[in-house]
């Protein structure tokens, strides 16, 4: 009986399809719940920074607040401006949300817990994260509004600029690993937190985190939606669930980049101390804790820092991060080559 079942789920195409759909649901549903609670945690963290209470009315400790907000967005009317390009206007938030979800296919949650264990995992993540800009830029153009369009242009320039330095960060990490597979990246950091890449590559970790802030349009780089100048930037004209998809996509992207940071620099599912009581904790818990830590830093930054000016943003991206990360790539390569630490491939 069980042999038949195994046969069905591994050979039969229908069985394989069921397995794939189940895997996707197993990633997507917890992800969406985390996105919902990330909005709650975000608001609680800012509230604490500003000595307020934050959401505390809906449910115990305000825990049902995200669902109340979600329900409100679903029930509201979707307004398409009369001069907007209706098709692109509706497609744009879908693209923004979808690109934030499909990237999770290659993220390893634990040893072997990954939907698609492909050889070019890092490149896939990089490719998908560079697509996120389309949702925003199409939204800005299709809205046919100057605020939305200016927000979209800012966002496009910003994301393209900071992708360059993220690319160099990825190159440094994969120089140290010798593989583009994300599971291999984690395995290369096994053996306690002093083996994780954030220590030898600390400058790159900082650059990665700051670029991740810019890539997700978070404070201090939230110029695409700076409400003082641009109302709400690229999603000025969006309402109800079309806005909701942008919002969810932004948070899903934040969680994704935190996960990427955890995989590249904080040892993925590895336990920080590789000895008995710590190794009993499942890897996925460590992974979630690391993501949660990075997300907390995201909220912390938002509660602490003022917004950058646009020229300062470009200066930081092109004149500081680009040369530093390029130099660090060369330095890392030289140290690996002459120190004899080149990973075997």
């Amino acid at each position, binding site marked *: 009986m069980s042999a038949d079942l195994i046969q069905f789920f591994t050979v039969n195409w229908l069985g394989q399809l069921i397995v794939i759909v189940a895997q996707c649901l197993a990633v997507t549903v917890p992800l969406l719940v985390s996105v919902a609670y990330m909005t709650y945690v975000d608001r609680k963290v800012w509230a604490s920074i500003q000595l307020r209470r934050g959401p505390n009315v809906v449910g115990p400790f305000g825990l049902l607040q995200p669902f109340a907000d979600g329900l409100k967005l679903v029930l509201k009317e979707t307004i398409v401006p009369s001069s907007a390009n209706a098709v692109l206007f509706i497609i744009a938030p879908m693209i923004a949300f979808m690109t934030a979800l499909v990237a999770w296919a290659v993220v390893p949650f634990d040893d072997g817990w990954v939907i698609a264990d492909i050889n*070019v995992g890092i490149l896939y993540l990089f*490719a998908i994260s560079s697509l996120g800009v389309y949702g925003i*830029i199409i939204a800005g153009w299709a809205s046919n509004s100057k605020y939305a369009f200016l927000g979209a242009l800012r966002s496009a320039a910003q*994301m393209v600029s900071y992708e360059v330095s993220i*690319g160099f960060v990825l190159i440094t990490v994969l120089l140290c690993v010798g593989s583009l597979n994300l599971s291999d990246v984690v395995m290369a950091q096994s053996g306690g937190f002093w083996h994780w890449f954030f220590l030898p590559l600390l400058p790159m970790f900082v650059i990665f985190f700051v670029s991740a802030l810019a890539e997700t349009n978070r404070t201090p780089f939230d110029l695409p939606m700076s409400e003082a100048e641009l109302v709400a930037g690229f999603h000025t004209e969006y309402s109800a669930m079309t806005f909701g998809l942008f919002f969810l996509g932004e948070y899903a992207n934040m969680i994704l980049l935190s996960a990427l940071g955890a995989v590249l620099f904080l040892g993925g599912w590895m336990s920080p101390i590789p000895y008995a009581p710590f190794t009993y904790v499942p890897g996925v818990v460590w992974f979630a804790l690391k993501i949660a830590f990075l997300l907390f830093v995201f909220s912390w930054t938002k509660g602490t820092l003022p917004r950058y000016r646009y020229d300062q943003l470009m200066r930081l991206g092109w004149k500081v991060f680009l040369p530093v990360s390029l130099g660090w790539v060369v330095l890392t390569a030289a140290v690996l080559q002459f120190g004899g630490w080149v990973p075997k491939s």
Partner: protein
Amino acid sequence: MLLQALAFYVFAAVTVASGAMVVVSRNPVYSVLFLILAFFNAAALFVLIGAEFIAMILVIVYVGAVAVLFLFVVMMLDINLVELREGFLKYLPVGAMIGVVLFAEILLGLGVLGAGSATMTALNKQGAQVLAIDNTRAIGRVLYTQYFYLFQVAGIVLLVAMIGAIVLTLRTRPGVRRQKVGDQINRTKEEAMTVVKVPTRGGV
């Protein structure tokens, strides 16, 4: 195998159709969006033949960077659709000729017309040798060793193009106040502020 063939035909059909739409669309923004769709499907075709590295690089470079800049420029253009249509017939022969030349080159290169097949078979032989490792490693092994000089030349060509673009667009405007971060950081308390004792009811 059937599924793979089906996927190939779907991706190929979408690539060709969106390629046609790039040319035919009235609105340049639609053209760029169709171009992106074509890039994407070309990447999918690369994945189907097992060239996942090229596929990812295609998406990262063309879709993630080049097409964004295209879109960026095209969206800011003041588009006059009537004028755009006027040029269509004028440029049609030139465009068609370039298309024919490119297609003929591909046919020649593939050895369909009898010539050039020697290089292809040689390349295929090389491909068979390195097939045991994944294609990222395969490219890495030859790119920085066997084709090192060609790689460097390609880089220099791009560098020259970049410098050319900068030279063409660089202009110094007088009277622009720039932020000098070094000066700001180097300011000291002594030079930046003076402490004034203001007498009561006296004012400054």
